[in-house]
Protein backbone atom coordinates (compact mmCIF):
# COMPACT_ATOMS: atom_id res chain seq x y z
CA UNK A 1 0.00 0.00 0.00
CA UNK A 2 1.29 3.41 -0.89
CA UNK A 3 1.60 5.67 2.12
CA UNK A 4 1.84 9.03 0.36
CA UNK A 5 -1.87 9.53 -0.48
CA UNK A 6 -2.80 8.09 2.92
CA UNK A 7 -1.21 11.09 4.61
CA UNK A 8 -3.74 13.33 2.86
CA UNK A 9 -6.69 10.96 3.10
CA UNK A 10 -6.48 10.52 6.89
CA UNK A 11 -6.76 14.22 7.83
CA UNK A 12 -9.42 14.86 5.21
CA UNK A 13 -11.50 11.92 6.39
CA UNK A 14 -11.21 13.01 10.01
CA UNK A 15 -12.04 16.59 9.03
CA UNK A 16 -15.27 15.45 7.39
CA UNK A 17 -16.18 13.27 10.37
CA UNK A 18 -15.54 16.16 12.76
CA UNK A 19 -17.56 18.53 10.61
CA UNK A 20 -20.55 16.28 9.95
CA UNK A 21 -20.83 14.46 13.27
CA UNK A 22 -20.20 17.14 15.90
CA UNK A 23 -21.92 15.11 18.60
CA UNK A 24 -19.16 12.53 18.67
CA UNK A 25 -16.37 12.98 21.25
CA UNK A 26 -14.20 14.77 18.71
CA UNK A 27 -11.18 15.33 20.93
CA UNK A 28 -10.41 11.68 21.72
CA UNK A 29 -11.25 10.73 18.12
CA UNK A 30 -8.78 13.35 16.93
CA UNK A 31 -6.02 12.03 19.17
CA UNK A 32 -6.71 8.55 17.83
CA UNK A 33 -6.59 9.85 14.26
CA UNK A 34 -3.36 11.67 14.97
CA UNK A 35 -1.89 8.42 16.24
CA UNK A 36 -2.71 6.76 12.90
CA UNK A 37 -1.27 9.79 11.11
CA UNK A 38 1.89 9.67 13.20
CA UNK A 39 2.41 5.98 12.45
CA UNK A 40 1.86 6.58 8.73
CA UNK A 41 4.37 9.46 8.77
CA UNK A 42 6.91 7.33 10.63
CA UNK A 43 6.52 4.47 8.15
CA UNK A 44 6.96 6.82 5.20
CA UNK A 45 9.98 8.35 6.93
CA UNK A 46 11.51 4.91 7.28
CA UNK A 47 10.81 3.91 3.71
CA UNK A 48 12.35 7.10 2.31
CA UNK A 49 15.35 6.60 4.57
CA UNK A 50 15.81 3.11 3.15
CA UNK A 51 14.74 3.49 -0.48
CA UNK A 52 15.15 7.17 -1.23
CA UNK A 53 12.64 9.70 -2.54
CA UNK A 54 9.29 8.53 -3.90
CA UNK A 55 6.76 10.04 -6.32
CA UNK A 56 3.06 9.35 -6.55
CA UNK A 57 0.69 10.44 -9.32
CA UNK A 58 -2.89 10.79 -8.08
CA UNK A 59 -5.23 8.67 -10.20
CA UNK A 60 -2.26 7.77 -12.41
CA UNK A 61 -2.51 11.14 -14.17
CA UNK A 62 0.93 12.36 -15.02
CA UNK A 63 2.12 15.96 -14.91
CA UNK A 64 1.31 18.52 -16.27
CA UNK A 65 -2.40 17.65 -16.11
CA UNK A 66 -2.25 15.34 -13.12
CA UNK A 67 -1.21 16.01 -9.56
CA UNK A 68 2.13 14.60 -8.52
CA UNK A 69 3.06 14.12 -4.90
CA UNK A 70 6.74 13.92 -3.99
CA UNK A 71 8.18 12.53 -0.78
CA UNK A 72 11.88 13.22 -0.35
CA UNK A 73 14.03 13.54 2.73
CA UNK A 74 12.94 17.07 3.62
CA UNK A 75 9.28 16.25 3.02
CA UNK A 76 9.18 13.23 5.29
CA UNK A 77 11.06 15.09 8.01
CA UNK A 78 8.50 17.88 7.90
CA UNK A 79 5.63 15.38 7.76
CA UNK A 80 6.92 13.64 10.86
CA UNK A 81 7.47 16.98 12.60
CA UNK A 82 3.92 18.10 11.72
CA UNK A 83 2.37 14.86 12.98
CA UNK A 84 4.36 14.94 16.21
CA UNK A 85 3.55 18.57 17.01
CA UNK A 86 -0.07 18.19 15.98
CA UNK A 87 -0.69 15.13 18.15
CA UNK A 88 0.74 16.86 21.22
CA UNK A 89 -1.28 20.00 20.46
CA UNK A 90 -4.34 17.78 20.07
CA UNK A 91 -3.77 16.26 23.52
CA UNK A 92 -3.31 19.75 24.95
CA UNK A 93 -6.45 21.00 23.20
CA UNK A 94 -8.37 18.04 24.57
CA UNK A 95 -7.95 19.47 28.08
CA UNK A 96 -7.74 23.14 27.15
CA UNK A 97 -10.98 23.24 25.16
CA UNK A 98 -13.08 21.94 28.04
CA UNK A 99 -13.44 25.54 29.06
CA UNK A 100 -14.35 26.58 25.52
CA UNK A 101 -17.36 24.50 24.41
CA UNK A 102 -18.30 27.04 21.75
CA UNK A 103 -14.84 26.98 20.17
CA UNK A 104 -14.58 23.22 20.47
CA UNK A 105 -17.34 22.73 17.91
CA UNK A 106 -15.24 24.24 15.14
CA UNK A 107 -11.73 23.68 16.42
CA UNK A 108 -11.49 20.04 15.44
CA UNK A 109 -12.69 20.29 11.80
CA UNK A 110 -10.38 23.26 11.28
CA UNK A 111 -7.53 21.40 12.99
CA UNK A 112 -7.88 18.53 10.52
CA UNK A 113 -8.30 20.75 7.48
CA UNK A 114 -5.17 22.64 8.53
CA UNK A 115 -3.28 19.40 8.87
CA UNK A 116 -4.44 18.17 5.45
CA UNK A 117 -3.41 21.46 3.85
CA UNK A 118 0.00 21.40 5.54
CA UNK A 119 0.65 17.84 4.47
CA UNK A 120 -0.48 18.84 0.98
CA UNK A 121 2.16 21.56 0.91
CA UNK A 122 4.99 19.34 2.16
CA UNK A 123 4.07 16.70 -0.43
CA UNK A 124 3.27 18.93 -3.40
CA UNK A 125 5.46 18.42 -6.44
CA UNK A 126 4.19 21.35 -8.49
CA UNK A 127 3.75 25.06 -8.01
CA UNK A 128 -0.01 25.16 -8.44
CA UNK A 129 -0.66 22.55 -5.80
CA UNK A 130 1.48 24.60 -3.51
CA UNK A 131 -0.81 27.55 -4.23
CA UNK A 132 -3.91 25.52 -3.37
CA UNK A 133 -2.20 24.25 -0.23
CA UNK A 134 -1.22 27.78 0.78
CA UNK A 135 -4.78 28.99 0.39
CA UNK A 136 -6.22 26.08 2.33
CA UNK A 137 -3.72 26.65 5.12
CA UNK A 138 -4.72 30.32 5.21
CA UNK A 139 -8.46 29.63 5.28
CA UNK A 140 -8.13 27.07 8.06
CA UNK A 141 -5.69 29.22 10.05
CA UNK A 142 -7.84 32.36 9.80
CA UNK A 143 -10.84 30.32 10.91
CA UNK A 144 -8.86 29.15 13.94
CA UNK A 145 -7.75 32.68 14.82
CA UNK A 146 -11.35 33.93 14.82
CA UNK A 147 -12.72 30.94 16.77
CA UNK A 148 -13.73 32.93 19.82
CA UNK A 149 -15.80 35.37 17.76
CA UNK A 150 -14.63 38.30 19.88
CA UNK A 151 -13.87 41.69 18.48
CA UNK A 152 -10.09 41.52 18.73
CA UNK A 153 -9.92 37.99 17.41
CA UNK A 154 -12.09 38.96 14.42
CA UNK A 155 -9.95 42.03 13.72
CA UNK A 156 -6.77 39.96 13.92
CA UNK A 157 -8.30 37.32 11.66
CA UNK A 158 -9.34 39.90 9.07
CA UNK A 159 -5.90 41.50 9.11
CA UNK A 160 -4.32 38.09 8.64
CA UNK A 161 -6.75 37.11 5.89
CA UNK A 162 -6.25 40.29 3.86
CA UNK A 163 -2.46 40.06 4.06
CA UNK A 164 -2.51 36.38 3.16
CA UNK A 165 -4.89 36.83 0.23
CA UNK A 166 -2.71 39.57 -1.21
CA UNK A 167 0.30 37.31 -0.78
CA UNK A 168 -1.30 34.41 -2.58
CA UNK A 169 -2.33 36.56 -5.52
CA UNK A 170 1.28 37.67 -5.91
CA UNK A 171 2.33 34.05 -5.80
CA UNK A 172 -0.36 33.03 -8.31
CA UNK A 173 0.68 35.75 -10.76
CA UNK A 174 4.22 34.41 -10.59
CA UNK A 175 2.90 30.91 -11.27
CA UNK A 176 1.01 32.24 -14.32
CA UNK A 177 4.18 33.84 -15.70
CA UNK A 178 6.24 30.67 -15.17
CA UNK A 179 3.63 28.51 -16.87
CA UNK A 180 3.41 30.81 -19.86
CA UNK A 181 7.19 30.75 -20.20
CA UNK A 182 7.89 27.04 -19.68
CA UNK A 183 4.57 25.22 -20.12
CA UNK A 184 4.95 23.20 -16.93
CA UNK A 185 4.52 23.71 -13.22
CA UNK A 186 6.25 20.55 -12.08
CA UNK A 187 9.16 21.63 -9.91
CA UNK A 188 11.50 18.91 -11.08
CA UNK A 189 10.89 19.78 -14.72
CA UNK A 190 11.15 23.48 -13.99
CA UNK A 191 14.50 23.02 -12.27
CA UNK A 192 15.91 21.79 -15.57
CA UNK A 193 14.03 24.23 -17.80
CA UNK A 194 14.30 27.54 -15.97
CA UNK A 195 16.67 30.02 -17.53
CA UNK A 196 17.96 33.20 -16.05
CA UNK A 197 15.91 35.80 -17.92
CA UNK A 198 13.53 38.66 -17.18
CA UNK A 199 10.36 36.58 -17.20
CA UNK A 200 11.76 34.06 -14.73
CA UNK A 201 13.15 36.73 -12.45
CA UNK A 202 9.90 38.72 -12.51
CA UNK A 203 7.87 35.59 -11.79
CA UNK A 204 10.13 34.52 -8.96
CA UNK A 205 10.16 38.05 -7.56
CA UNK A 206 6.35 38.16 -7.46
CA UNK A 207 6.20 34.75 -5.82
CA UNK A 208 8.87 35.76 -3.31
CA UNK A 209 7.00 38.93 -2.34
CA UNK A 210 3.80 36.95 -1.86
CA UNK A 211 5.55 34.32 0.23
CA UNK A 212 7.36 36.93 2.33
CA UNK A 213 3.98 38.38 3.30
CA UNK A 214 2.70 34.95 4.21
CA UNK A 215 5.82 34.08 6.21
CA UNK A 216 5.56 37.44 8.03
CA UNK A 217 9.13 38.46 7.30
CA UNK A 218 10.00 41.98 8.45
CA UNK A 219 8.73 44.53 7.29
CA UNK A 220 5.66 42.54 6.17
CA UNK A 221 5.07 40.99 9.58
CA UNK A 222 2.44 43.37 11.04
CA UNK A 223 -0.40 40.84 10.79
CA UNK A 224 1.39 38.11 12.77
CA UNK A 225 1.58 39.31 16.41
CA UNK A 226 -2.16 40.06 16.87
CA UNK A 227 -3.15 36.82 15.12
CA UNK A 228 -0.69 34.56 16.94
CA UNK A 229 -0.78 36.43 20.23
CA UNK A 230 -4.57 36.63 20.40
CA UNK A 231 -5.57 33.09 19.48
CA UNK A 232 -6.25 30.16 21.82
CA UNK A 233 -3.06 28.54 23.11
CA UNK A 234 -3.18 25.37 20.95
CA UNK A 235 -4.04 27.49 17.90
CA UNK A 236 -1.12 29.85 18.53
CA UNK A 237 1.16 26.85 18.85
CA UNK A 238 0.03 25.36 15.55
CA UNK A 239 0.22 28.71 13.76
CA UNK A 240 3.67 29.68 14.99
CA UNK A 241 5.16 26.20 14.76
CA UNK A 242 3.77 25.03 11.44
CA UNK A 243 1.72 27.51 9.42
CA UNK A 244 4.34 30.21 8.87
CA UNK A 245 6.87 27.49 8.03
CA UNK A 246 4.78 26.27 5.10
CA UNK A 247 5.30 29.44 3.07
CA UNK A 248 8.98 29.58 3.98
CA UNK A 249 9.28 25.97 2.82
CA UNK A 250 7.93 26.98 -0.60
CA UNK A 251 10.34 29.92 -0.72
CA UNK A 252 13.28 27.65 0.06
CA UNK A 253 12.21 25.05 -2.50
CA UNK A 254 11.75 27.78 -5.07
CA UNK A 255 15.16 29.41 -4.81
CA UNK A 256 17.40 26.63 -3.51
CA UNK A 257 15.87 23.57 -5.13
CA UNK A 258 13.83 24.25 -8.28
CA UNK A 259 15.49 27.55 -9.15
CA UNK A 260 18.95 26.86 -7.79
CA UNK A 261 21.52 29.22 -9.23
CA UNK A 262 18.91 31.79 -10.29
CA UNK A 263 19.02 33.89 -7.14
CA UNK A 264 21.45 36.78 -7.65
CA UNK A 265 23.94 37.21 -4.81
CA UNK A 266 22.70 40.75 -4.15
CA UNK A 267 19.13 39.46 -3.89
CA UNK A 268 20.22 36.76 -1.47
CA UNK A 269 22.03 39.31 0.67
CA UNK A 270 18.90 41.49 0.62
CA UNK A 271 16.81 38.57 1.88
CA UNK A 272 19.43 38.10 4.58
CA UNK A 273 19.19 41.79 5.54
CA UNK A 274 15.41 41.40 5.87
CA UNK A 275 16.05 38.39 8.09
CA UNK A 276 18.55 40.29 10.22
CA UNK A 277 16.13 43.22 10.58
CA UNK A 278 13.43 40.74 11.63
CA UNK A 279 15.76 39.25 14.25
CA UNK A 280 16.56 42.62 15.80
CA UNK A 281 13.16 44.27 15.39
CA UNK A 282 11.26 41.21 16.62
CA UNK A 283 13.65 40.84 19.54
CA UNK A 284 13.30 44.47 20.61
CA UNK A 285 9.53 44.40 20.26
CA UNK A 286 9.39 41.17 22.28
CA UNK A 287 11.37 42.89 25.00
CA UNK A 288 8.87 45.75 25.14
CA UNK A 289 5.72 43.63 25.38
CA UNK A 290 3.66 43.63 28.54
CA UNK A 291 1.59 40.60 27.59
CA UNK A 292 3.31 37.24 27.70
CA UNK A 293 1.62 35.86 24.57
CA UNK A 294 2.59 38.94 22.58
CA UNK A 295 6.18 38.47 23.72
CA UNK A 296 6.15 34.95 22.33
CA UNK A 297 4.46 36.14 19.12
CA UNK A 298 7.15 38.77 18.52
CA UNK A 299 9.72 36.11 19.28
CA UNK A 300 8.27 34.23 16.30
CA UNK A 301 8.83 37.29 14.11
CA UNK A 302 12.47 37.31 15.25
CA UNK A 303 13.03 33.58 14.86
CA UNK A 304 11.61 33.59 11.33
CA UNK A 305 14.40 36.00 10.50
CA UNK A 306 16.99 33.27 11.09
CA UNK A 307 15.36 31.21 8.38
CA UNK A 308 15.99 33.99 5.87
CA UNK A 309 19.73 33.82 6.57
CA UNK A 310 19.77 30.53 4.65
CA UNK A 311 19.59 32.45 1.37
CA UNK A 312 22.76 34.58 1.69
CA UNK A 313 24.62 31.66 3.25
CA UNK A 314 23.70 29.25 0.45
CA UNK A 315 23.97 31.59 -2.54
CA UNK A 316 27.24 32.25 -4.27
CA UNK A 317 29.18 30.20 -1.74
CA UNK A 318 31.03 26.92 -1.93
CA UNK A 319 28.90 23.72 -2.06
CA UNK A 320 30.13 22.80 1.42
CA UNK A 321 29.02 26.13 2.90
CA UNK A 322 25.73 25.97 1.01
CA UNK A 323 25.05 22.48 2.31
CA UNK A 324 25.80 23.55 5.88
CA UNK A 325 23.45 26.52 5.49
CA UNK A 326 20.69 24.34 4.05
CA UNK A 327 21.01 21.80 6.85
CA UNK A 328 21.25 24.49 9.51
CA UNK A 329 18.24 26.36 8.14
CA UNK A 330 16.04 23.30 7.95
CA UNK A 331 17.13 22.12 11.39
CA UNK A 332 16.30 25.58 12.71
CA UNK A 333 12.87 25.27 11.12
CA UNK A 334 12.25 21.96 12.89
CA UNK A 335 13.79 22.99 16.24
CA UNK A 336 11.93 26.29 16.29
CA UNK A 337 8.67 24.51 15.50
CA UNK A 338 9.02 22.26 18.56
CA UNK A 339 10.35 25.00 20.83
CA UNK A 340 7.74 27.58 19.84
CA UNK A 341 4.87 25.11 20.13
CA UNK A 342 6.14 24.18 23.60
CA UNK A 343 6.44 27.84 24.50
CA UNK A 344 2.92 28.78 23.41
CA UNK A 345 1.43 25.75 25.16
CA UNK A 346 3.28 26.40 28.42
CA UNK A 347 2.40 30.10 28.26
CA UNK A 348 -1.22 29.13 27.69
CA UNK A 349 -1.12 27.09 30.90
CA UNK A 350 0.57 29.92 32.80
CA UNK A 351 -2.05 32.42 31.62
CA UNK A 352 -4.81 30.06 32.74
CA UNK A 353 -3.15 29.53 36.09
CA UNK A 354 -2.63 33.19 37.00
CA UNK A 355 -5.75 34.44 35.23
CA UNK A 356 -4.04 37.28 33.39
CA UNK A 357 -2.10 37.76 30.19
CA UNK A 358 0.23 40.35 31.75
CA UNK A 359 3.84 39.39 32.34
CA UNK A 360 3.75 41.22 35.68
CA UNK A 361 1.04 38.79 36.84
CA UNK A 362 3.59 35.98 36.64
CA UNK A 363 5.40 37.40 39.68
CA UNK A 364 6.45 34.70 42.09
CA UNK A 365 4.91 31.74 40.30
CA UNK A 366 8.17 29.79 40.03
CA UNK A 367 7.38 27.71 43.12
CA UNK A 368 3.70 27.30 42.30
CA UNK A 369 3.70 25.96 38.78
CA UNK A 370 7.27 24.80 38.16
CA UNK A 371 6.51 22.26 35.42
CA UNK A 372 5.08 24.75 32.93
CA UNK A 373 7.78 27.26 33.72
CA UNK A 374 10.37 24.53 33.18
CA UNK A 375 8.86 23.74 29.78
CA UNK A 376 9.01 27.45 28.93
CA UNK A 377 12.64 27.51 30.00
CA UNK A 378 13.63 24.45 27.99
CA UNK A 379 11.95 25.91 24.91
CA UNK A 380 13.80 29.15 25.63
CA UNK A 381 17.12 27.31 25.77
CA UNK A 382 16.50 25.99 22.26
CA UNK A 383 15.39 29.40 20.96
CA UNK A 384 18.49 31.08 22.43
CA UNK A 385 20.65 28.41 20.85
CA UNK A 386 22.30 27.19 24.03
CA UNK A 387 23.79 23.69 23.95
CA UNK A 388 22.51 21.01 24.07
CA UNK A 389 19.43 21.72 22.00
CA UNK A 390 18.11 21.57 18.46
CA UNK A 391 18.38 25.35 18.27
CA UNK A 392 22.05 25.20 19.20
CA UNK A 393 22.87 22.65 16.49
CA UNK A 394 20.97 24.68 13.89
CA UNK A 395 22.75 27.93 14.79
CA UNK A 396 26.08 26.11 14.99
CA UNK A 397 25.65 24.78 11.44
CA UNK A 398 24.69 28.24 10.22
CA UNK A 399 27.66 29.81 12.02
CA UNK A 400 29.99 27.25 10.47
CA UNK A 401 28.53 27.98 7.07
CA UNK A 402 29.00 31.72 7.56
CA UNK A 403 32.61 31.21 8.67
CA UNK A 404 33.38 28.79 5.82
CA UNK A 405 32.15 31.29 3.27
CA UNK A 406 33.80 34.19 5.09
CA UNK A 407 30.55 36.12 5.60
CA UNK A 408 31.44 37.51 8.99
CA UNK A 409 28.55 39.96 9.11
CA UNK A 410 26.12 37.05 9.43
CA UNK A 411 28.22 35.61 12.27
CA UNK A 412 27.65 38.86 14.15
CA UNK A 413 23.92 38.82 13.40
CA UNK A 414 23.60 35.22 14.60
CA UNK A 415 25.42 35.88 17.87
CA UNK A 416 23.70 39.18 18.68
CA UNK A 417 20.35 37.60 17.86
CA UNK A 418 20.94 34.87 20.42
CA UNK A 419 21.83 37.47 23.02
CA UNK A 420 18.63 39.38 22.32
CA UNK A 421 16.60 36.18 22.58
CA UNK A 422 18.18 35.45 25.94
CA UNK A 423 17.26 38.96 27.13
CA UNK A 424 13.54 38.59 26.53
CA UNK A 425 13.39 35.03 27.82
CA UNK A 426 15.11 36.05 31.05
CA UNK A 427 12.71 38.96 31.37
CA UNK A 428 9.98 36.38 32.04
CA UNK A 429 12.19 34.48 34.47
CA UNK A 430 13.17 37.58 36.40
CA UNK A 431 9.50 38.25 37.11
CA UNK A 432 8.55 34.68 37.91
CA UNK A 433 11.48 34.14 40.30
CA UNK A 434 10.84 37.44 42.11
CA UNK A 435 11.73 36.48 45.68
CA UNK A 436 9.67 39.27 47.21
CA UNK A 437 6.54 38.11 45.44
CA UNK A 438 7.23 34.51 46.43
CA UNK A 439 7.54 35.55 50.07
CA UNK A 440 4.27 37.45 49.87
CA UNK A 441 2.63 34.29 48.55
CA UNK A 442 1.56 35.82 45.24
CA UNK A 443 0.73 33.94 42.10
CA UNK A 444 -1.47 31.05 40.98
CA UNK A 445 -5.20 31.38 40.90
CA UNK A 446 -6.05 28.03 39.41
CA UNK A 447 -4.28 24.71 39.47
CA UNK A 448 -3.38 23.60 35.95
CA UNK A 449 -4.37 20.20 34.66
CA UNK A 450 -1.41 17.82 34.41
CA UNK A 451 -2.30 17.07 30.77
CA UNK A 452 -1.65 20.70 29.84
CA UNK A 453 1.68 20.78 31.64
CA UNK A 454 2.98 17.44 30.40
CA UNK A 455 2.19 18.06 26.72
CA UNK A 456 4.10 21.36 26.74
CA UNK A 457 6.99 19.71 28.55
CA UNK A 458 7.07 16.87 26.02
CA UNK A 459 7.40 19.31 23.11
CA UNK A 460 10.15 21.21 24.90
CA UNK A 461 11.94 17.94 25.61
CA UNK A 462 11.86 17.07 21.92
CA UNK A 463 13.31 20.50 21.07
CA UNK A 464 16.17 19.79 23.47
CA UNK A 465 16.43 16.18 22.32
CA UNK A 466 17.08 17.36 18.78
CA UNK A 467 20.41 18.54 20.16
CA UNK A 468 21.39 14.94 20.72
CA UNK A 469 19.68 13.31 17.76
CA UNK A 470 20.22 15.98 15.13
CA UNK A 471 22.27 13.62 12.97
CA UNK A 472 19.18 11.64 11.99
CA UNK A 473 17.11 14.42 10.41
CA UNK A 474 20.23 16.02 8.94
CA UNK A 475 21.25 12.81 7.24
CA UNK A 476 17.77 12.59 5.75
CA UNK A 477 17.67 16.26 4.80
CA UNK A 478 20.72 15.91 2.64
CA UNK A 479 19.39 12.91 0.75
CA UNK A 480 17.45 14.66 -2.05
CA UNK A 481 20.21 17.16 -2.67
CA UNK A 482 22.81 14.47 -3.09
CA UNK A 483 20.62 12.53 -5.49
CA UNK A 484 19.28 15.33 -7.65
CA UNK A 485 22.33 17.50 -7.34
CA UNK A 486 19.99 20.41 -6.82
CA UNK A 487 22.33 22.36 -4.62
CA UNK A 488 25.35 21.84 -6.81
CA UNK A 489 24.17 24.61 -9.12
CA UNK A 490 24.58 27.01 -6.24
CA UNK A 491 28.34 27.24 -6.47
CA UNK A 492 29.55 30.07 -8.70
Amino acid at each position, binding site marked *: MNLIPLLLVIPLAWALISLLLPRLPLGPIAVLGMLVQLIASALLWRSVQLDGAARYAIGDWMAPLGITLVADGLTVTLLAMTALIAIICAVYALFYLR*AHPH*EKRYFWPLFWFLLAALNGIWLAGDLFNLYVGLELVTLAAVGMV*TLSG*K*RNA*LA*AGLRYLYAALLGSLGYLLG*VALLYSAYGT*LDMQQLSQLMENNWTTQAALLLMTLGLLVKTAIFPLHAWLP*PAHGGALAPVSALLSALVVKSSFYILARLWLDAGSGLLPVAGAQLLGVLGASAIFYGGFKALQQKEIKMLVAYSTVAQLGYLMLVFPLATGTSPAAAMLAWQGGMLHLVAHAFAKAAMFLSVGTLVLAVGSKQISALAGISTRIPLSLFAFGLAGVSLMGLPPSGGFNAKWLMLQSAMTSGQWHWVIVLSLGSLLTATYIFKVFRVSFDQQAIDQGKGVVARAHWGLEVSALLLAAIAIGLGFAAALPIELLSLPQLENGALEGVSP
Partner: protein
Amino acid sequence: MTSDLWFALMGVALIALAAFTFFRQVHLLRRILAFNIMGSGVFLVMVGMAQHQRETDPVPQALVLTGIVVAVSATALALIIFRRFYSVSGQVELDEYQIEEPTQNEDHASDTMKDNINSLQDALQSDDEAPAKPSASKGDQ
Protein backbone atom coordinates in the same frame (compact mmCIF):
# COMPACT_ATOMS: atom_id res chain seq x y z
CA MET B 1 -1.13 41.93 -31.49
CA THR B 2 -3.11 38.80 -30.77
CA SER B 3 -6.30 38.71 -28.74
CA ASP B 4 -4.57 36.53 -26.15
CA LEU B 5 -2.04 39.22 -25.48
CA TRP B 6 -4.91 41.67 -25.11
CA PHE B 7 -6.35 39.44 -22.40
CA ALA B 8 -3.05 39.47 -20.56
CA LEU B 9 -2.66 43.24 -20.89
CA MET B 10 -6.21 43.85 -19.65
CA GLY B 11 -5.45 41.49 -16.81
CA VAL B 12 -2.40 43.51 -15.82
CA ALA B 13 -4.44 46.73 -16.00
CA LEU B 14 -7.12 45.20 -13.76
CA ILE B 15 -4.50 44.03 -11.27
CA ALA B 16 -2.95 47.48 -11.13
CA LEU B 17 -6.31 49.22 -10.62
CA ALA B 18 -7.44 46.75 -8.00
CA ALA B 19 -4.12 46.82 -6.15
CA PHE B 20 -4.37 50.60 -6.00
CA THR B 21 -7.84 50.32 -4.49
CA PHE B 22 -6.77 47.56 -2.12
CA PHE B 23 -4.07 49.73 -0.60
CA ARG B 24 -5.93 53.05 -0.72
CA GLN B 25 -9.28 52.01 0.72
CA VAL B 26 -9.84 51.22 4.37
CA HIS B 27 -13.44 50.00 4.02
CA LEU B 28 -13.18 46.25 4.42
CA LEU B 29 -15.94 45.47 1.92
CA ARG B 30 -14.30 47.55 -0.78
CA ARG B 31 -11.05 45.76 -0.14
CA ILE B 32 -12.77 42.39 -0.56
CA LEU B 33 -14.12 43.63 -3.90
CA ALA B 34 -10.68 44.86 -4.88
CA PHE B 35 -9.23 41.47 -4.04
CA ASN B 36 -11.79 39.79 -6.29
CA ILE B 37 -11.05 42.10 -9.19
CA MET B 38 -7.35 41.55 -8.68
CA GLY B 39 -8.02 37.82 -8.79
CA SER B 40 -9.88 38.18 -12.08
CA GLY B 41 -6.92 40.09 -13.46
CA VAL B 42 -4.56 37.29 -12.48
CA PHE B 43 -6.86 34.74 -14.12
CA LEU B 44 -6.93 36.78 -17.33
CA VAL B 45 -3.13 36.88 -17.36
CA MET B 46 -3.05 33.16 -16.71
CA VAL B 47 -5.36 32.25 -19.60
CA GLY B 48 -4.11 34.96 -21.94
CA MET B 49 -0.36 34.51 -21.67
CA ALA B 50 -0.40 30.73 -21.77
CA GLN B 51 -2.28 30.53 -25.08
CA HIS B 52 0.38 32.07 -27.27
CA GLN B 53 1.08 28.82 -29.13
CA ARG B 54 -2.18 29.37 -31.09
CA GLU B 55 -3.86 26.27 -29.69
CA THR B 56 -6.04 25.94 -26.64
CA ASP B 57 -4.13 24.68 -23.65
CA PRO B 58 -6.37 22.94 -21.10
CA VAL B 59 -4.00 23.32 -18.16
CA PRO B 60 -4.48 27.09 -17.55
CA GLN B 61 -8.23 26.61 -17.87
CA ALA B 62 -8.13 23.97 -15.16
CA LEU B 63 -5.89 26.15 -13.02
CA VAL B 64 -8.19 29.16 -13.36
CA LEU B 65 -11.20 27.02 -12.49
CA THR B 66 -9.46 25.89 -9.30
CA GLY B 67 -8.36 29.45 -8.67
CA ILE B 68 -11.97 30.68 -8.92
CA VAL B 69 -13.10 28.07 -6.41
CA VAL B 70 -10.35 29.16 -4.03
CA ALA B 71 -11.19 32.85 -4.53
CA VAL B 72 -14.90 32.22 -3.88
CA SER B 73 -14.15 30.34 -0.65
CA ALA B 74 -11.77 33.06 0.49
CA THR B 75 -14.36 35.74 -0.31
CA ALA B 76 -17.02 33.81 1.59
CA LEU B 77 -14.78 33.53 4.63
CA ALA B 78 -13.81 37.21 4.44
CA LEU B 79 -17.46 38.24 4.17
CA ILE B 80 -18.62 36.16 7.09
CA ILE B 81 -15.81 37.36 9.35
CA PHE B 82 -16.48 40.93 8.23
CA ARG B 83 -20.20 40.59 9.01
CA ARG B 84 -19.41 39.23 12.44
CA PHE B 85 -16.83 41.95 13.03
CA TYR B 86 -19.37 44.59 12.00
CA SER B 87 -22.05 43.24 14.30
CA VAL B 88 -19.65 43.04 17.25
CA SER B 89 -17.85 46.36 16.79
CA GLY B 90 -20.05 48.43 14.48
CA GLN B 91 -16.94 49.26 12.46
CA VAL B 92 -16.34 48.77 8.75
CA GLU B 93 -12.58 49.26 8.94
CA LEU B 94 -9.68 48.04 11.04
CA ASP B 95 -8.08 50.46 13.46
CA GLU B 96 -4.47 51.11 12.64
CA TYR B 97 -3.37 51.29 16.26
CA GLN B 98 -4.43 47.72 16.75
CA ILE B 99 -1.25 46.52 15.11
CA GLU B 100 0.69 47.48 18.19
CA GLU B 101 -1.97 47.12 20.88
CA PRO B 102 -4.24 44.18 20.17
CA THR B 103 -6.17 44.34 23.42
CA GLN B 104 -7.49 47.81 24.05
CA ASN B 105 -10.18 46.99 26.58
CA GLU B 106 -8.01 45.16 29.04
CA ASP B 107 -10.51 45.11 31.93
CA HIS B 108 -13.12 43.55 29.74
CA ALA B 109 -10.69 40.98 28.38
CA SER B 110 -9.52 39.94 31.81
CA ASP B 111 -13.13 39.58 32.98
CA THR B 112 -13.81 37.13 30.21
CA MET B 113 -10.56 35.43 31.05
CA LYS B 114 -11.72 34.95 34.63
CA ASP B 115 -14.99 33.52 33.35
CA ASN B 116 -13.02 31.10 31.25
CA ILE B 117 -10.84 30.12 34.16
CA ASN B 118 -13.84 29.53 36.37
CA SER B 119 -15.43 27.31 33.78
CA LEU B 120 -12.11 25.53 33.26
CA GLN B 121 -11.87 24.86 36.96
CA ASP B 122 -15.41 23.51 36.88
CA ALA B 123 -14.51 21.34 33.95
CA LEU B 124 -11.37 20.02 35.57
CA GLN B 125 -13.11 19.24 38.83
CA SER B 126 -15.81 17.22 37.13
CA ASP B 127 -13.87 15.41 34.45
CA ASP B 128 -16.75 13.46 32.97
CA GLU B 129 -19.45 16.08 33.11
CA ALA B 130 -19.82 18.29 30.11
CA PRO B 131 -18.98 21.87 31.07
CA ALA B 132 -21.80 23.21 28.83
CA LYS B 133 -21.44 26.84 29.74
CA PRO B 134 -21.44 28.61 26.39
CA SER B 135 -22.12 31.93 28.07
CA ALA B 136 -18.60 31.95 29.46
CA SER B 137 -16.92 32.06 26.09
CA LYS B 138 -19.45 34.42 24.56
CA GLY B 139 -19.12 36.90 27.36
CA ASP B 140 -18.22 39.71 24.97
CA GLN B 141 -21.50 40.00 23.17
